[in-house]
């Protein structure tokens, strides 16, 4: 199943410079694996060594936060758009 994945901000350079890629997969894990095959190193930017989404990215599948849908096991419904969004954060120190 083909999905559109948006990878804005600092993630753009992990996939060759475009902030929108096409990928296939029925779960978030499969979609990330598909992108990683074409852009080696991508998965390591968004998944930690324990197999969880890194804390500084938020992933939306349509309107749903992937973390509330099982994280990497989250299913991707037909036609959904996936957004992988680097956090917008900072502090005064």
């Amino acid at each position: 199943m083909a999905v559109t994945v948006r990878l804005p901000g600092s993630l753009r350079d992990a996939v060759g410079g475009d902030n929108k890629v096409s990928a296939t997969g029925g779960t978030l894990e499969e979609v990330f694996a598909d992108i990683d095959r074409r852009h080696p190193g991508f998965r390591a930017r968004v998944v930690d060594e324990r197999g969880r989404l890194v804390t500084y990215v938020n992933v939306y599948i349509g309107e749903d936060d992937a973390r509330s849908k099982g994280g990497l096991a989250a299913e991707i419904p037909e036609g959904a758009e996936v957004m992988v969004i680097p956090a917008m954060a900072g502090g005064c120190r």
Partner: protein
Amino acid sequence: MPLTRGAGAGALALPASLRAEIVAHARESAPHEACGLVAGRGGRATRVIRCANVADDPLRRYVMEPAAVMHALRSVQDAGEESADGVEGEPLAIYHSHVYSGPYPSPTDRAEARWPSSFYILVSVRAEEPEVRAYRIRADHPGSEKTVVEAELTEG
């Protein structure tokens, strides 16, 4: 922290009304830090999108509410707006306030900057007269340490 001006940082045109909107947001939120996005095209800001600060310690940190960021980015995509580098679907700028310090990116701001194509606007409301400045915060090469370069800020 080394702060250089100019070279390659570009210029951000921020109309007075939008600057006033950001300052108002910062004042209303104090003592918490305020944050949000600025959308635009061709280096010129056209609208301010406020986002809630959901940091555990909003007196010293900002973390934009993820769902609000997602919706803001969708609206930026739909409008065909562009980042500072002309990347479609990304914010022209990301702003946040400093309540007790000046409008300069802190070590935390630099470490957590993950939007290399956008300007970072810092607004300080520590004094009666607000101070607003804009920067680019990015690594020159993938993996290298990020540098902070102040950008020219005009009223457009």
